[in-house]
């Protein structure tokens, strides 16, 4: 009841402010780009919801550039390269000041050129393939971490635990092997030792020999880069056989189901995860606002979509105008700006300078945010 009253007050206040500033100068049009039809429609809708929420909050706070309201227009990419080109062309023809969104990397890539030619700043919030980097004409900024960032997060984490000998286990598929290779290279570059680098075959149940070689290698920590089902088995057998070092798993294994399979052995296991709302302390109000507005919990890319809109708004204000080059310059100058997920600064390639992966810890059968 208390919560309801509070929300009602907030809503009333929002209405009041919106009403008073509605007559201000002409609106600033921002495009949102994501799939709202097709197989990925739920994620796209989720992103639109979060972007709209951010825009409403900004408008309620008095809008941009001294009172101009944000007006959103949407483009549905259907996660399809051809349809995304149509959507992007349509957004460009509506003379949007900037675009926020981009979910499927494959469908996002061809839109980069369109926005580049039309000179429209683009904040990419979810798509994170490294192939987007060379395709970027200079107007796009990626605020989701890539696979290389997860490796960086892992290396930072293990180094922070005073570990030297690390064992890495993957499953031989493109995803888990890539993460394992990146982590190994970064770990060795940081001057540490890889004591074991192993692969398990999918569908294998008995990891006893593997556990022996890990223990025998003197590893102080084990990093599992593949998925939860086999990861659960490995964790269980490591602990069953008295391995007492640190165990951490990649974002393919941060599912709640890991606890079903590994049972008590998963207690105290660490996991790396994209910044989903549940694990972001700053996102508490966001979650409740989102749930009130849309009657459902925010999805995995909602916080980044929200941050993308906030970043664009921040850049427009900083630029002091709707001039594209000024906004792009402002975006590039972002220096640790933070909303829900981690702080945002960019590399010269316009990718996130600091990984926004978060570290989780298993406690009582649930993942909680790990705070060192």
């Amino acid at each position, binding site marked *: 009841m208390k919560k309801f009253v509070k929300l009602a007050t907030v809503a009333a206040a929002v209405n009041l402010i919106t009403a008073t500033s509605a007559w201000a100068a002409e609106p600033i049009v921002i495009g949102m780009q994501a799939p709202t039809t097709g197989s990925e429609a739920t994620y796209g809708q989720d992103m639109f919801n979060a972007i709209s929420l951010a825009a409403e909050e900004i408008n309620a706070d008095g809008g941009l550039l001294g009172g101009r309201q944000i007006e959103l227009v949407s483009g549905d990419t259907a996660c399809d390269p051809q349809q995304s080109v149509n959507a992007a062309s349509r957004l460009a023809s509506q003379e949007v000041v900037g675009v926020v969104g981009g979910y499927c990397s494959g469908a996002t890539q061809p839109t980069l050129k369109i926005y580049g030619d039309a000179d429209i700043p683009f904040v990419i919030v979810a798509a994170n393939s490294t192939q987007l980097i060379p395709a970027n004409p200079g107007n796009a900024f990626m605020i989701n971490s890539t696979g290389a960032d997860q490796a960086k997060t892992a290396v930072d984490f293990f180094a922070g635990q005073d570990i030297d000998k690390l064992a890495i286990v993957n499953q031989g598929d493109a995803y888990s092997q890539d993460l394992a290779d990146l982590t190994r290279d970064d770990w060795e570059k940081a001057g540490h030792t890889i004591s074991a680098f192993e692969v*398990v075959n999918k*569908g294998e149940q008995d990891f006893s020999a593997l556990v022996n070689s890990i223990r025998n290698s003197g590893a102080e920590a084990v990093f599992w880069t593949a998925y939860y089902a086999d990861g659960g088995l490995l964790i269980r057998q490591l602990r069953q056989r008295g391995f007492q070092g640190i165990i951490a798993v990649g974002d393919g294994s941060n599912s709640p189901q890991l606890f079903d399979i590994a049972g008590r052995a998963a207690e105290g296991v660490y996991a790396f995860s994209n910044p989903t709302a549940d694990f972001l302390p700053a996102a508490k109000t966001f979650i409740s606002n989102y749930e009130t507005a849309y009657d459902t919990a925010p999805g995995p890319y909602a916080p980044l979509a929200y941050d993308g809109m906030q970043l664009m708004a921040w850049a427009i204000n900083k630029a002091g105008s709707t001039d594209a080059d000024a906004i792009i310059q402002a975006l590039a100058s972002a220096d640790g700006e933070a909303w829900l997920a981690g702080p945002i600064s960019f590399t010269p390639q316009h990718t996130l300078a600091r990984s926004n992966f978060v570290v989780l810890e298993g406690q009582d059968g649930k993942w909680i945010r790990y705070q060192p």
Partner: protein
Amino acid sequence: MAWYDLFLQMIVDGLVLGAFYALVALGYTMVFGVIKLLNFAHGDLYMTGAFVGFGALSLVSGVFGAGWPGIFIAMLLSMLAVGCLGVVIERVAYHPMLTAPRLSILITALAVSLVLQNAALTLTGGQYTAFRTDLGFGGFSLGNLFLSWNQIVLVTTAAVLMIALELFVSKTLYGRAMRAVAIDKDMCRMLGINVSAVIAITFFIGSGLAAAAGTMAGAYYGSIWYFMGFLIGLKAFTAAVIGGIGSITGAMLGGLILGLLESFGTHIPFIGSEWKDVFTFTILILVLVLKPTGLLGKSEVERM
């Protein structure tokens, strides 16, 4: 860990793994003994046994708990149910084919395997099912050698089952009939032995042992899924071939040897764990080429 500790640990691990392979290999070899069929559905009976054991455990855990007593009861129930399933499969799918060419019945066995796998896939949605038990992680250490209670119970149970089978086959009337049917079916018929009943008993026992292995594997490793029987089916087949297919003692020996070889194979320098299965199946090919009858098998002259 000193090298001899590692060596001993590898032997222990190989024995545990080998116990599973041996239990499953027994079903292969017994069925091959009586009807000369490579029952490729056998690995899927292991999987079915794991799921039935899982269901049975959730039924009986209220009374017997989810520790070893409950697991044993669930295992016995699963052996009974899957044993009957094995008999039904033999009656429905293999019995009408006994006089058909050998290739036809082999293809039928593959079909039965796919039926079981896909039924489990549909029923479980392809998800991993967590096999929850109250088994602890306890054990004892001898120097650097670590033995868990679960491993000891597991290997003991497998040994008891195998000794019981050996006694059944060598000492009882039905066991003698089973050996007789394996040698000459037609002669048995003439002597008044109910060959169909002997075949049914063979399937019952073979499937029951696979179910025992499946339930114990589920409880020991902690998760089960519809495809879990595939790889172990192939490896148990390899074990049966190493020991000499058709020979019961050979299957036990083959299972243990394969378990040990795999355990050691993972530690060969410069060959990482990802080559483990390559190593296993290379052994299968080598045995087939160099000594097709296996360690204890007898060479058999095809009768016209």
